[in-house]
């Protein structure tokens, strides 16, 4: 249940930020959404077993599922890469502004 609430909170913030004007806030929204995805993945392994998966544990019933952890590791790094790219994109191409809504062409027509 805590995973569910945490994921919900993260998505809530993410979607709210998506709907803001500034690119940076949209990016921050994606940071949150990335967290949410990872929380979902971790939850998918089941949050009842929490012992770190090392070696060849005798009692499997308390050890966390290592597969979602590997998924999350991969996902974190991928999200990191894309976040950097998006941050660069937010400051590239135009001076000063990272506003996502100004569109002179539309204003003209």
């Amino acid at each position, binding site marked *: 249940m805590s995973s569910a609430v945490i994921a919900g909170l993260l998505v809530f913030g993410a979607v709210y930020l998506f709907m803001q004007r500034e690119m940076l806030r949209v990016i921050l929204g994606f940071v949150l959404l990335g967290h949410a995805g990872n929380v979902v993945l971790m939850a998918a392994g089941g949050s009842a077993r929490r012992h770190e998966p090392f070696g060849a544990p005798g009692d499997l019933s308390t050890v966390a599922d290592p*597969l979602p952890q590997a998924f999350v590791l991969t996902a974190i790094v991928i*999200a990191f*890469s894309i976040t950097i790219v998006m941050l660069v*994109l937010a400051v590239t191409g135009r001076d000063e502004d990272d506003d996502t809504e100004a569109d002179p062409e539309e204003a003209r027509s």
Partner: protein
Amino acid sequence: MSGALLPLFVALPLLLSALLLIVGDRRVLHAVGLFGTLLLAIGGALWLVTDFAGSGGAVAHGVAQWPVGISIPFVADMFAALMLAVTAVLTLVCSWFAYASGRAATVYFAPLVLVLTAGVNGALLTADLFNLFVFIEVMLLPSYGLFVLAARHKGTERQVMGARLYVTLNLLTSTIFLMGVGFIYGTAGTVNMAELAGRAATDGTVAISAAVCLFAVAIKAAVVPIHGWLAVAYPATSPAITALFSGLHTKVAIYAIYRIYAVVFDGDAHWLWIGVALCCLTMVAGVLGAVGEKTTRSVLAFHMISQIGYILLGVALFTLAGLAAGIFYLLHHMIVKASLFLSTGAIEVRYGTGRIGALSGMAKREPVIAVAFFVAALSLAGLPPFSGFVAKFSLILAAVDTGHVIAVIVMLAVSLVTLLSMLKIWNGVFWGSAEAPAPHAPAPAGDGAVATASDGVVATASGRRISAALAGPAVVTACLTLALGLGAEVLMGVSTTAAEGLLDTSTYVKAVMDS
């Protein structure tokens, strides 16, 4: 082909890409590496196609040969092989255009395209949903690079916005897909497609989870109501890249929808009506958007949306005829769309604008390009004797066969409006006196991405015309659509084989389980 070789579809482009980065700025080496690898990929894919021709079947290989369910399985069947072949051909053609238009003259181009190829191949071959997510990302990252590489000089506002929109929407898609994969693992305890086979049809929670994945790829495929981003974002890069992406990204998403629905849902008839409804809406919204647009590439981008409705109708019907028609449509569309983007792109590159009405007389000035465009446009509208006709006809036949009257009416009406919008381009760009338009000043390496740059009629100047190298890709693809129309049986035969593999997934599943 032995299944163990399948990972080479990913490994070789990746390795080449890495080596090109290491050797640095040696343009000839880059071109040789890029085209060589692509030719190799085409060869490999055709090898697979011939393997499966006739009797169908599938080869699979668990990468690194861990036990089944632990290894990431790579599987090829006819559908995958066809997609591998056509995507590689498209990449080749678009890269050719990029080189011809001066777009590829950077140290980044060839490595990025190669990584993109690796990603596409991996996404097509993998039978593991998380791995699919990874390969979608492997496709996307170089795409971001290629997208922005296009607008080399400081782009217009809209281009920057387009790039941002492209990145954000794709990121959203991948994250939702990732969540869906999480849910699938949460409910089914596996992300292996073979182990998931049919699970969504029997287990409601798996169905919901898989639906999240489908939803995500549907965003990528630009299905209504999440279609608008594509029409805004795609025209914001250079023509070659628009063509490339239209052939790769949306199509891989469509491939994933076909695959997931066939395997995980086992074609569950329960939900098909939703698919049919969404497909009809997509067709209509796309084509209406297209007639309303003002630049060639925006028109074409909206068409892509409309055609995606057609293609997905194949899976929404989920009969042999429907799937075969859908696959045929998919392959045909990849080629024709590229042809259209590349013919109008050649004009854009050469004359500096793609604004409808800012050009005229291209039919007289550039007859070769005009013919290429005309052929592809007719094919897109589904007129015989081009491949588009066979695609549309077989799809309508399948829809009539299943009694989807509304879908048939929509398809027919939409093809008329499609023709209308194509006429809009023809009228605004190709017809008229040939004297007025002339090459734009910055031509040779001209910025193809300035689709919206010029409002007025382009200034008069004498000058060169579109070179053979630049026109080549459009002509080749236009010839392909004619050949695929006249020789439709070949493609229809293999599409049917591919469709059989989707209708009865046991071969696919067995191949993975035995790998």
